[in-house]
């Protein structure tokens, strides 16, 4: 509880207190941040989740807003592990104590573990211009990471140029990521099935030389 660097910062969440939220002044409630940037570059960033085990969904859209621009990313990895580098949690379930009960019996665990998620940067917005390429500078360290709401997702996915960015990522499970992203984005769009067709056609154009991969992703899009 005392460690400023430890846990998922349960003790310091001023933004969730409505009284202190700056946006109250203009009457629009601002969603609570879901994480904070802890590692950053122009192509991707990693954030630590504010709450243990509470991360945006795989394939979901997140954003970091600075005074100059809003940077958008797609979550491609979620990881929960020990707080210290190289440390590894040990087995705790004994005498029939399992799952949730382990946490209940060991409240200090939440201070020893952390959840992180990483996002590929897919575009940014400066003023009213939405650009589907990388920003000139990375999102700043320790800035808040928010989840995008549905209108933002619908606006972001009007152009699907970011599929190529995702396809060219080296460390991500790209195919599964695309399928997850398209499923999430289609829910946010006005017409779910036409969005999936549109996204599928964009994929077909990008993957015209890799038919097996294309069909694998398309299969993942059909529930």
């Amino acid at each position: 509880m005392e460690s400023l660097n430890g846990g998922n910062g349960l003790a310091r969440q001023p933004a969730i207190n409505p009284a202190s939220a700056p946006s109250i002044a203009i009457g629009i409630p601002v969603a609570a941040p879901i994480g904070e940037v802890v590692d950053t570059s122009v192509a991707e960033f990693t954030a630590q989740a504010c709450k243990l085990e509470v991360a945006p969904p795989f394939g979901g859209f997140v954003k970091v807003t600075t005074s100059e621009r809003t940077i958008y990313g797609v979550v491609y990895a979620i990881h929960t592990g020990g707080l210290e580098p190289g440390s590894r949690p040990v087995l705790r379930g004994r005498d029939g104590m399992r799952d949730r009960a382990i946490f209940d019996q060991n409240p200090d665990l939440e201070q020893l573990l952390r959840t992180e998620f990483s996002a590929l940067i897919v575009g940014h917005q400066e003023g009213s211009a939405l650009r589907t390429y990388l920003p000139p500078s990375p999102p700043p360290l320790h800035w808040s990471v928010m989840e995008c709401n549905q209108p933002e997702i619908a606006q972001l996915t009007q152009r699907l140029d970011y599929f190529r960015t995702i396809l060219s990522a080296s460390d991500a499970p790209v195919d599964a990521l695309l399928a997850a992203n398209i499923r999430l984005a289609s829910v946010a769009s006005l017409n779910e099935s036409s969005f999936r067709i549109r996204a599928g056609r964009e994929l077909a154009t990008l993957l015209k030389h890799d038919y097996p991969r294309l069909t694998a992703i398309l299969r993942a899009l059909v529930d």
Partner: protein
Amino acid sequence: MADDRLGLIVEGSLVDGLRARLDGSQSVEEIRVGQFVRIIGQKHDYFCLVTDVRLHATNSDLIADPPLPDNEFALRVLAGTTAYGALAIQPMLMLARDGSDDASVEDGPRPVRTIPPHFAQVFKADEADFNRVFGEEADHRFEIGQPLDMDVPVRLDLTRFVERSNGVFGKSGTGKSFLTRLLHCGIVTSGAAVNLIFDMHNEYGSASQSDGGRPVKGLVPLFGSSRVQVYTLDRHSKTKNDGFIRFGLNEIEIEDIELLADELRLNATAVETAALCESRLGRDWIARLTDDDANVAELNETVMAHEASISALQRKLMMIRNLSFIEPRVSQKDSGLDRLIESLAKKQHVVLEFGHHSSLLAYMLAANVITRRIHRVWTQRIEENKQGRGPEPPQLMITIEEAHKFLNSRAANQTIFGTIARELRKYNVTLLVVDQRPSGIDDEVLSQLGTRITCALNDDKDIDATLAGVSGAGHLRAILASLDSRQQAMILGHAVPMPMALRTRSYDDAFYAWIAETASRRPVTPTSQGWHQSGDAVATTVRPARRYEELFGKDD
């Protein structure tokens, strides 16, 4: 506008044609071979024909492992992306875009000399495009039909049509006769030329014929006997006619015998014997040979030929003599031929019915003898006209059926029809060749045909023959081969700016009404190239008929 866009040009050449990638939103099934499309280039509009439709895939794996039919999502995603349609397009004409200083803005479309740039947009042609290419409605433009997929008139320039010999081809039952009727009606209505129709089956002239139970009007009920005259070779014809045609054996020349060699079953030796007889016995040689009282020994002596061959020739020539319109000798005045020619000179259209003479022998003999006479008269008048004596004879179009019998490679060099087909328009006489076996027609004659209107043909040889002498014929083969066997035709050549597959106009009550309406709007429509000078053109229908001698001078 974007909804009409079919796709984008992606590659091609002027010689081999262009290839367009079909837009994902367009269905391949909506495109027809032979469809008329417009490509918008940077400086020109290009008018083109779709010559082939293809399916392509960007990835060969797709071809090996296509999505299953129940995977609707994959089908919808892949169609138009990984798997797409492509069009083969042959550019035909180009027209400078508005605002360009190119002269073709004024002059109308010209043959293509270049091709549109990459990614030029391909659109379905609309009515305005058809009007730009085939011309606005005018007296000399006759609506021959409509494109296969649109309700827009395709017009034939009749003035250009009658300038050269033309062909109507198609296998039996595909609507050749109706197409020919349409052309006759168009020519009568426009006055672009005078028709002489050798009507083997008595179907074009007076009586309303029944075809498949449907009554069909001939030319006389449609235009009246003042404009269309019917002559007959059948003395006992029951149909109303304006005259009986007969002629003498002395009119028959050795060229006729050569033409009829197959029908008379004469071998080469017999034809030579006939030639010998003609040179020794003079113009009445057939009459003398076939005379019942002929003395064979005496004839042998005169001709100096083998007795058996003379007897054989006699027997064969009896087939000619037995035709009821043939007499040993007929004077010019009695033959009726002069009256027929006089009718033509007065710009009256003439249908010559064969009545019960349904044999090819009668048809070929009569057509050849009569046409030779007419050709001589026309040639003479043209020469006189050139020397400043007398008016120019009217443009004449002679319709012959079973044309491969007259114009096969053996006969074409000998018969008058071969001469007319090759001479083209020098003597104001052209042919309308109606045939179901164009491959039987001499190549040289075929290549001289100005406009060809072709109904469905099965035989590859016939299709090749139809396209003989046409540049870029390869592209048109697919269109021709895809025609329905009823009321569809492809038209190409001199009288249309570009080849076009079409649904031919219906020869029905609506068409009869159009004729009546047009006739009331323009009662007499002579062309400037016709027989009469434009000043007295109207007068000819009012003035009493002039005598033949008045028109042509004395003919001996």
